[in-house]
Structures are given as C-alpha cells and as structure tokens.
C-alpha cells in the first residue's frame, strides 16, 4: 500500500494483530512493555502500515548528540562518561512553582507509556522508535505556569569535562543546547518527555535521564538530557536558529514542501537502508501526524514560519 494515499483509515484496521505481535517479539519481553499493552491505541497512533520498528542497536548507536562529537557513532562511544545521578532540573520563569527539583521528584508517581513514533531527522533519514515517555503536559502542569507563559524553553546539561563535544576547539555551538515549544505545542498529547526506549531506561547517548520527543518536528527539536525548563512570554532562540537562521527556524515542523539549503526534504531514507536499496520514501507533512497537530498552525504561512 502506498503511504499517504489513504491516511483516514483507522490504525486498528491497518495493523493486524500478527503484525503487532511480531513487533512485540522484536522489541523483546519486558515488564514495562507488557504493562504498556493496554495503551495500544495511543502507542500506535498514526503508525503507517509499513512502519517497521528500527533495530535497537541502530537507535542506540547511530544518532546525533553534538555534545559528544559530530559523528553519529560518537554519542554511543563517548556518552558513558556522563553522570546522570543525581540529576537536578531548574524550573524558572512564568510559573508558580519554580526552583531546583530532583529529577525523581518531578516524575514521582507518573508511569511511562509506550509511544511508537516515527523520528525524522533534518538530514533526511528517519527511524521508527518505541519510546517510553510521560505526556509533557502532565509534567509541565505541576509547575503551574501562569497566563504569561506562552512558550517553554529547555536546555541540555553543560559539563565539558564529561562531554567532549562541548570542550572541542572546532565546535561553533554556543552551549547549552537550547530548544523551545509554544505552550499549545507542548500541551499536545503527542508531546512527551522520554525516559526509556525499547522497554529499558534511556541510554546516555539518547539523552538520559530524560529528553523531549515531538514527533511531528525535525529531530533537533527533541532536546536531550534536559536540566532547565523555563516558561516565558517570548519565543526562545533555539540553538540551530542561532547558528544559521536562514536554514533553521523555531517551528521546524517536518514539511516536504519547504526545501532546506542542505537537504531536500521531499523524501527520506528509512534506516536501516542498504547500498542496494536506500529504503527511500516520500516525507509526509508533519511527519505523518497532520491529523493530530495541523490545527495548531491554522492560518500560519508554514513557508515563512519554518
């Protein structure tokens, strides 16, 4: 079946139980996942019929995390040096509850749900990943953001002694890595804070102990190893926009119609690809999540707000 041709078919009709069970087998048996089976509906939301879960060793050994180097194998090779316990998160800005919080206290009493999402990198490759996460809304609401909170900004840990990319002379990034969302984007049910993947705790190289996941946006929006949450009334300046505003905007919604000066965004290579079959497929608007998120951008010129 060609993807994109009939997006209206409910997920339950296009995913047969055997396919689902095979995927289960693929993921492996884990208590967390068994607990998650009750959430089949939300976990599989928006999954296309030919979305196959990307093998675990690719998800955890091939990714960008410039704090540990610019090669995609660098995070896996270098991230083991990062200390994630204790982990303190600073909450500031337009909210009633601000200050330093221990990570465990923030997520206390919350259960991570399984969410199988497509992950689309701005470099035109993509994966399908079984994340474990907590709805972002649930996390943010406990800080009681005020009416002035129009945006939320996230920052990654800065610790050059444990992050070789941050101490590299040849990097032009102004750390900390910064990202942000509009509050209504943050409160969309698809937005989650990821604490695990493949039924295990999130590995350092994927952004331990927790990272953002907003699947309708390019991967660089999903900031890793977060130590700061700030509520603000102004649009945050995210790292890539700061580096190259002509190429990277604030919104970064996956959009095949908006061309990028480095990569055509019309199609993507679904990993693993091989030399003899690059596994190329057309890229969908909002990475295939238009039904869930397109209303957030009603009336906006997405070519201007890219």
């Amino acid at each position: 079946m060609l993807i994109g041709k009939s997006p209206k078919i409910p997920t339950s009709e296009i995913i047969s139980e055997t396919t689902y069970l095979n995927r289960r087998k693929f993921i492996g048996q884990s208590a967390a996942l068994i607990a998650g089976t009750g959430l089949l509906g939300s976990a599989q939301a928006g999954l296309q019929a030919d979305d196959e879960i990307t093998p675990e060793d690719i998800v955890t050994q091939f990714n960008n995390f410039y704090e540990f180097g610019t090669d995609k194998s660098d995070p896996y090779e270098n991230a083991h040096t990062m200390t994630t316990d204790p982990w303190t998160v600073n909450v500031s800005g337009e909210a009633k509850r601000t200050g330093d919080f221990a990570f465990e206290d923030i997520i206390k009493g919350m259960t991570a749900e399984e969410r199988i999402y497509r992950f689309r990198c701005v470099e035109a490759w993509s994966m399908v990943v079984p994340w474990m996460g907590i709805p972002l809304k649930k996390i943010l609401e406990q800080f009681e953001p005020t009416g002035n909170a129009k945006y939320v900004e996230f920052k990654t840990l800065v610790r050059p002694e444990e992050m070789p990319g941050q101490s590299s002379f040849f990097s032009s990034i102004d750390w900390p890595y910064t990202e942000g969302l509009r509050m209504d984007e943050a409160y969309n049910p698809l937005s989650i804070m990821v604490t695990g993947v493949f039924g295990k705790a999130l590995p350092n190289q994927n952004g331990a102990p927790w990272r953002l996941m907003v699947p309708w946006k390019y991967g660089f929006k999903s900031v890793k190893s977060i130590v700061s949450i700030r509520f603000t009334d102004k649009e945050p300046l995210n790292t890539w926009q700061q580096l190259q505003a002509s190429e990277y905007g604030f919104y970064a919604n996956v959009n095949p119609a908006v061309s990028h000066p480095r990569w055509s965004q019309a199609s993507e290579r679904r990993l693993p690809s091989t030399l003899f079959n690059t596994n190329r497929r057309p890229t969908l608007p909002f990475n295939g999540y238009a039904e869930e998120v397109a209303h957030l951008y009603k009336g906006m010129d997405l070519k201007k707000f890219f």
Partner: protein
Amino acid sequence: MAKSRSNNALKFTLAVLASAPFAWLVYLISLEIVQPTSGLGPDPAEGLLHYLGEWSMIMLLVAFGVTPVQRLFKKPLLARSRRMMGLFAFAYVVLHLLAYVVLYVESSWQLLLEDFVERTYITAGIAAFFGLLVMAITSTKGWRRRLGQNWLRLHKVIYLAIPLALLHLIWLRKDGFGDVALYILCFAILLGERAYQIRKSQKAATV
C-alpha cells in the same frame, strides 16, 4: 636505466598508496553485501558518500603537494608522478559524484538540477568537478603538446577547484570543523610554498 627503474618503483609505490582507500572501500562494500549495515553503517548511502568525499579532498591536496614536496626534498623524479596523482584524485571525485547521483538524486536530472540551483554547496562541488574534468581530459601528452603555453595556463584552474572543493565541504558541514581546518592549513602551506618560489625567482631575475 637505473633512474627509470627507480622512477617506476616510486610510481608503483605511490599508486599502491593512493589505491589503499579504494581497496578498503571495496572491503567495506563486500561486508555490506554479506550483511547489510556491517560495513558502512545503518545509512550506507551517507557513509559511502562522505568516505569518498573526504578521500577526494585528501587526494586533491596530495596531488597539489607533489611539486612543493619534490622541490623541498630535491626529488625531481617525483614530478613524473604528478599527473598520476592528479588522476587518482579525479577518480575519487568521480566515484564521489557517482555515489551522489545514484544514491542521493537517484539519477533524476530534475532533482540534480534542483540541488545544483538551490544548494550552494552542491553548486560549488559540481563547479570544482568541471574544473577537474577539464584538467583530467587535457592531462595527456597529446593535449599538452597541442595546447603549448596555454596548457600551463589552463591547469591553473586547480587554484580555483581546490578552494571550491573546500567551500563545498564547509558549507555542507554543520559543526565540527577539525578536519576542514586541517585541509585549509595544508592548502595554505602548499600555496605559501608556491608564493615563496615565485618571489625567489623574481628576485633572481632582478639581480
């Protein structure tokens, strides 16, 4: 007789060295055939393209370095390998371009044109390729004879092709400019040596 034999030995050694990255690539591809992703990683199209691109850059600088190195070590024999090294560099560039055309734009002229127009780093890369193509075609003895004095003039296009190739890499790179800095440094040193030689010969002429 002895001289030509040592020339052949030198040429052969250089040819083996210049082929080594290609041989390694053949090995990686053979791993890919046995077990996908084992040789070039989960995104082999990108792996292959970047591997060939890096070696294109290195080989271009090596070929550009033949003349200064020959002067520095007083090894005039080395000059006879210059054409070969240039052609090796061109071969890596051709493979790099082929990998891009087949794996990235999937042999579509329309996509190639779009890339050429919209993406400045591709424009720079393809411009560099055409410069090198002209040099490769006119590298034969016949062309050299036919073009006479113009041959030297034409082959000055390398002073444009290498900076274009460097721009191609700089504009593509998002961050992590370590290797780029190294390439620029090498190019600057090799340019500096040439400038020094020109000044020296000008001084000698005025004396």
